[in-house]
């Protein structure tokens, strides 16, 4: 088995997504690394046939792959496991498995087909009832079913596009075991991820992409510091974040003795002062986002923020910014100006569009939003959407609750967003944010709240913690 990617180039308008990419993989697990916008997903889409490159070719076992057609890729043995399960929640597990199956007519001898499928499930020790609906499975199980389906259909090259983001640690361990046993059968795996620990644990070789080009090809043993340097060459942090405030104005976070499942947990009390940045750390799928959201709504638990005078901080001083920008934070089909208009609409009965235009153009400048008034939000890039959300934040809110403020943004956009968030930092404001990226938590927080699963396991000042401690807390190792 041998995969050769030769001189693949792809442009979208003026944007060079892939330029002269050459990768050759003989066996094992190969990592595709790079920051957002480095060209990883374009390359994955080219290999799986979803888009056609401008030029270049791909050889699988010295045979030329016909590019730009998903079916050709599937028939040549390419299998793509998506980030989110791309399956059919309403169909039974068996039916989900049968959609697009290689057998010409699985229903002619359904019993035989079922046995064949069962055999492959048993081989990889995965035990799932076929007759239940697919949506009753966990995300991890759905991904496993999908992986087995790819194998059943004869995939020789399996591409995993950041597949572990929704996995629990347990599921991840199982998945990694399965992947390793696959390589022993000669199947090649391309693993797209930006989680270095996973790559170091799992992969044999790696390619680092930057701005659409291959900048390094490396192989085991990996050195994480070295990889980071290579990935982020010439991009260094420029933010000054040594603004610290001492403030008399304190408040306390009270985590009640019962979590939201009604189980007894330890009471936690911790005093904060305004002027802090509080990072809520947790793995993907843990409840750190729910804490951010539910300080705001108070549905989740009896966790609350209390002033020294024993008064609960009124909700109207909160500002919550959801991570799902386009679904929950903004209006996909409204333009930029209309967003500012909506923001102002609570003040007056009739909208003075000239006034709104004035305010908006100031905000657009201040927040560096690269868009016109008439651009619909769905046309903006993720970074610009995030900056628009920040610009819509009222000036006088004292508790900011930012749910994954840099989710899905590349390094530079994320830095830019943080610059804006930190510019809001003042002695009267407390900023809470959630993140699954421990590096981000570590970089920007004064106080770290560690969430494992559904419970807060630790609250402490950053200066009393180490990064490893936080990692252990969120992984449930106490």
């Amino acid at each position, binding site marked *: 088995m041998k995969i050769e990617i030769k001189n693949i180039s792809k442009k979208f308008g003026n944007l060079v997504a892939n330029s002269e990419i050459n990768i050759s993989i003989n066996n094992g697990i190969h990592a595709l690394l790079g920051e957002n916008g480095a060209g990883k997903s374009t390359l994955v889409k080219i290999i799986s046939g979803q888009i056609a490159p401008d030029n270049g070719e791909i050889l699988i076992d010295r045979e030329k792959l016909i590019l730009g057609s998903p*079916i050709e890729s599937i028939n040549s043995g390419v299998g793509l496991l998506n980030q989110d399960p791309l399956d*059919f929640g*309403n169909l039974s597990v068996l039916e989900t498995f049968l*959609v697009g199956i290689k057998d010409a007519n699985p229903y002619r001898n*359904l019993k035989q087909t079922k046995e064949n499928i069962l055999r492959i499930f048993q081989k990889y020790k995965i035990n799932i009832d076929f007759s239940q609906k697919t949506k009753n499975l966990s995300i991890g199980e759905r991904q496993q079913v999908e992986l087995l389906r790819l194998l059943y259909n004869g995939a020789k090259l399996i591409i995993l596009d950041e597949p572990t983001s929704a996995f629990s640690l347990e599921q991840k361990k199982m998945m990694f075991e399965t992947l390793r046993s696959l390589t022993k059968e000669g199947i090649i795996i391309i693993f797209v991820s930006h989680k270095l620990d996973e790559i170091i644990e799992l992969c044999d070789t790696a390619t680092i992409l930057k701005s659409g080009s291959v900048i390094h090809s490396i192989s085991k043993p990996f050195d994480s510091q070295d990889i980071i340097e290579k990935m982020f060459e010439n991009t260094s942090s420029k933010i000054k974040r040594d603004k610290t405030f001492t403030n008399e104005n304190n408040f306390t976070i009270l985590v009640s003795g019962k979590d939201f499942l009604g189980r007894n947990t330890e009471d936690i009390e911790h005093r904060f002062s305004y002027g802090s940045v509080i990072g809520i750390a947790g793995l993907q799928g843990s409840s750190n986002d729910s804490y951010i959201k539910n300080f705001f709504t108070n549905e989740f638990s009896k966790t609350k923020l209390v002033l020294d005078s024993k008064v609960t901080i009124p909700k109207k001083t909160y500002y919550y910014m959801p991570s799902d920008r386009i679904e929950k934070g903004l209006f996909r089909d409204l333009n930029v100006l209309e967003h500012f208009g909506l923001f102002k609409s609570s003040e007056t009965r009739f909208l003075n569009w000239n006034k709104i235009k004035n305010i908006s153009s100031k905000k657009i400048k201040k927040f560096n939003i690269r868009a016109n008034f008439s651009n619909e939000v769905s046309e903006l890039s993720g970074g610009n959407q995030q900056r628009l959300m920040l610009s819509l934040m009222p000036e006088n809110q004292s508790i900011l609750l930012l749910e994954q403020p840099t989710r899905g943004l590349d390094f530079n956009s994320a830095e830019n967003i943080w610059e804006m968030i930190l510019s809001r930092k003042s002695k009267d404001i407390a900023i809470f944010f959630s993140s699954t990226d421990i590096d981000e938590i570590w970089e920007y927080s004064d106080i770290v709240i560690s969430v494992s699963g559904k419970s807060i396991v630790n609250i402490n000042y950053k200066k009393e913690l180490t990064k490893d401690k936080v990692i252990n807390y969120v992984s449930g190792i106490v």
Partner: protein
Amino acid sequence: MLFENTIVTVISLSTPLIIAVIGETISEKSGVINLSAEGTIMISALSGFAFGYITDFAIIGFLAGMLTGSIIAAFISYCDIKLRMDQIAVGFVLTILCIDLSNYLGQDYVRINGPMVTKFAIPFISKIPILGNVFFNHSLITYFSILLIPISWFFLNKTNLGLSIRASGENPLAASSRGINVKKMRMFGTIIGGALLGLAGASFSLYTKYGWSESHTANYGWIILAIVIFGGWNPFRAAAGAYGFGLLQVLAIKAQTVTLALSQILPLLPFPIMIFILIFIQYINRSERNKFPKFLISILGGNQPEALGRKLPEDVK
């Protein structure tokens, strides 16, 4: 005897309803709501009757009805797949257009006699006591409607093509990434569904509600749309709903001889019952799964195709 006759009448009278709910179910399983059912059925009733009258062959009438339904469905499919338009908007406008068009074009055919579908007793088995009379002494189109129920179920659930159609209605993007031609599947489902709606229209005007008059099949299209939801997108349940509706209608007619008041209330009954059942189904679907007994959920819980009524994603090739 009374009981036996009632069942015979219900089966016979429900013929177009059965064909229509199965057609709409197939269309919706592929992800496309054919909201024009009311208009499609009406204009197919006219075209079916008119072509039957002109050629004096009922079979030509049925074929004309099917063709009419298919053409309307093909147009909906074009708007859905090529123009990516809103299915509801297109369907609604088509409904109004077809109703008015059928009333305009049908002026010459009001209350005249055309070909009639006759009963065809199946030799030997129609002689079986009771059963023979109930099930095997109908017109050919009624036999077809009865056969259509298991056939459509088998097609949707036990064939590769049926699975591909359902996959396209559940998650077009996932289906397309597995190499299924989603556009073709949706087009196929919509047109087959439309043809059956057209056939249903023709079976009104050539059989159960013989002849043509202005707004001849008024409201049946809306009712079948409701019955499809009631049926939870399952041909057997949808058919049960259609027969139930037919039964209430027959009871209403029979009640006329007993008391006038009851005969006026009974025709109205299906509608509140339908609304209550729809609310109940929705309630079951939205509530915690284990709150209701399992059999109740399996009988009444719906299985709405996830992508029903949604525009095709841009990434679907």
